[in-house]
């Protein structure tokens, strides 16, 4: 049986001296798209950072069965790609150079990009429809265009596990739809996608939902399950209602 993509056991993490995650346990299956949702301040982004090994924590986190803390940095970077919220500006780097940074974990230090690196970068830029701007500096792009380049950077890593914090920020509806299609293709190819989304209706398109509340997992289950919908409504104080619409689930304010 395939090892889970990520496991967390008794994870505690703090930000600025305040504990955000209180002994959280979680198992995320491989080859699925899992969305983490919850009210503001529930600890969604903190959890994603802990799972990516970017925030110190107590307890244990395992990536594809191996303890995350014991993996060398480059090895971890090849296994797990990260797309953060409001990444740095990189105004002066070209779109190509930014996407190329995703290949750093695969390259020898200061080595010129190999043909495989170039192919991975081209594939990632084409997948996010950013190929045509490859020579333009990131600083000349709009917020949505930039987000697609940053997504290409994360895709270029070609890691089996992809963690994304609010990847749809700044994207217009057509490009949100493209992103959903892309994620489904990645998952169909056996990759694991874990994303934090604040837009519940979009999150309900995932395979699984992890509902966080006050630094704990309040519920984990399939997006199509009625029990998951009830848990969602409860965590949001019955202020939202989940309805079926054209074969999908949507969350509407009550």
């Amino acid at each position, binding site marked *: 049986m395939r090892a889970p993509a990520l496991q967390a056991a008794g994870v505690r993490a703090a930000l600025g001296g305040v504990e955000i995650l209180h002994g959280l346990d979680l198992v995320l299956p491989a080859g699925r798209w899992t969305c983490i949702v919850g009210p503001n301040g529930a600890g969604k982004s903190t959890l994603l950072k802990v799972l990516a090994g970017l925030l110190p924590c107590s307890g244990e986190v395992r990536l594809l069965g191996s303890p995350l803390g014991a993996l060398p940095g480059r090895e971890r*970077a090849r296994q797990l790609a990260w797309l953060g919220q409001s990444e*740095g500006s990189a*105004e002066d780097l070209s779109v190509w*150079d930014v996407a190329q940074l995703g290949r750093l974990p695969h390259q020898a230090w*200061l080595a010129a990009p190999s043909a495989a690196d170039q192919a991975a970068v081209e594939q990632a830029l084409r997948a996010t429809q950013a190929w045509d701007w490859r020579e333009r500096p990131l600083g000349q792009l709009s917020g949505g265009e930039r987000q697609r380049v940053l997504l290409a950077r994360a895709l270029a890593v070609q890691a089996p596990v992809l963690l994304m914090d609010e990847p749809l920020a700044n994207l217009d509806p057509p490009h949100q739809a493209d992103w959903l299609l892309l994620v489904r293709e990645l998952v169909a190819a056996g990759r694991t996608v874990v994303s934090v989304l604040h837009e519940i209706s979009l999150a309900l398109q995932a395979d699984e939902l992890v509902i966080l509340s006050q630094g704990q997992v309040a519920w984990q289950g399939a997006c199509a399950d009625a029990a998951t919908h009830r848990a969602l409504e409860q965590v949001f104080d019955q202020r939202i209602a989940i309805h079926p619409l054209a074969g999908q689930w949507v969350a509407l304010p009550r």
Partner: protein
Amino acid sequence: MSPMARVHRRAAWLALALLGASLVLLGLGAAVGSTGLSDLRALGQDATAWPIVRDIRVPRSLGAWLAGALLGLAGAVAQGLFRNPLADPFLLGSASGASLGVALALALFGINPVAASWLAALGLTGAAFIGAMAAVLLTLALARGVQHTLRLLLAGVIVGVVLGALGSLITLLVPETLPAMQAFLLGSTGFIGWTACAPMAGAFVLCLVAAWIVSPVLDGLTLGEATARSLGLPLGPLRLALVAVMALATGAAVAQAGLIAFVGLAAPHLVRSVVRTTHARLVGLSALAGGVLLLGADLLARALIAPQELPVGVLTAVLGGGYLLWLMQRGRGAKGAV
């Protein structure tokens, strides 16, 4: 063909243009004296004039270029490391730290910056390096890291003022250092001889190679700290290496040429206005641009009120300040660099 061939070609052309400008300016630096422009071929035949060219004008011009290149390199590293287009060796306190180091060395060991000894030049560079490194670390400690731009710049200003005051206090307590320190504070290339060129050239080669080796970290940092770490970059040790490169480059330049403002700030901006590229290229191009800027300013300082000359630090402060104001003005209308 690489998808970035056009950008790479542009960077190569800029490098060639800057190298060409450097050579022309070095030639002018050798030919221009208090009596105006002379023919270098005629000077070569003149037994009285030739030693002046060989021992004063050439090392001075080469020294001005090296000091500018060191400051340009330090500026590119600082702006990348602190992810801040305003970062400059001066704004982070490292130049004041370096000048305090020099003041201490002058007071304790009586090293004269005009001294022709190779060891004295090296000793001053060492003192300036330690002072610069300590000042940057102090600024970083006060600002609690590099994330908060305003706090970082404010801490740099505070450290600069306090260390500058300490330097003045030393000069007051040991008045013999006053003339040497005054020349130093104004920033001048007039005292640079072959013995001062040697440590600067050594530091330049060392810093350029080190900065080039560590440059992928600067590219990674443009996407923010978390993303850089997620790419497996060992940020801790490499960041320290970059601070050391910046401190050594600033220290080596300041120890020999005194306080020369704005070259470190302006050189990377000038390069970026022509070509936007990765730090591996930006660092080298900024060094070339810094060399051209300071050597050009030095020639201007020698020509403006000839046969007398202006301290080049005064000129770069006026020109650089004007450039910064222009950048700010431009940034108000469109999304500019500042």
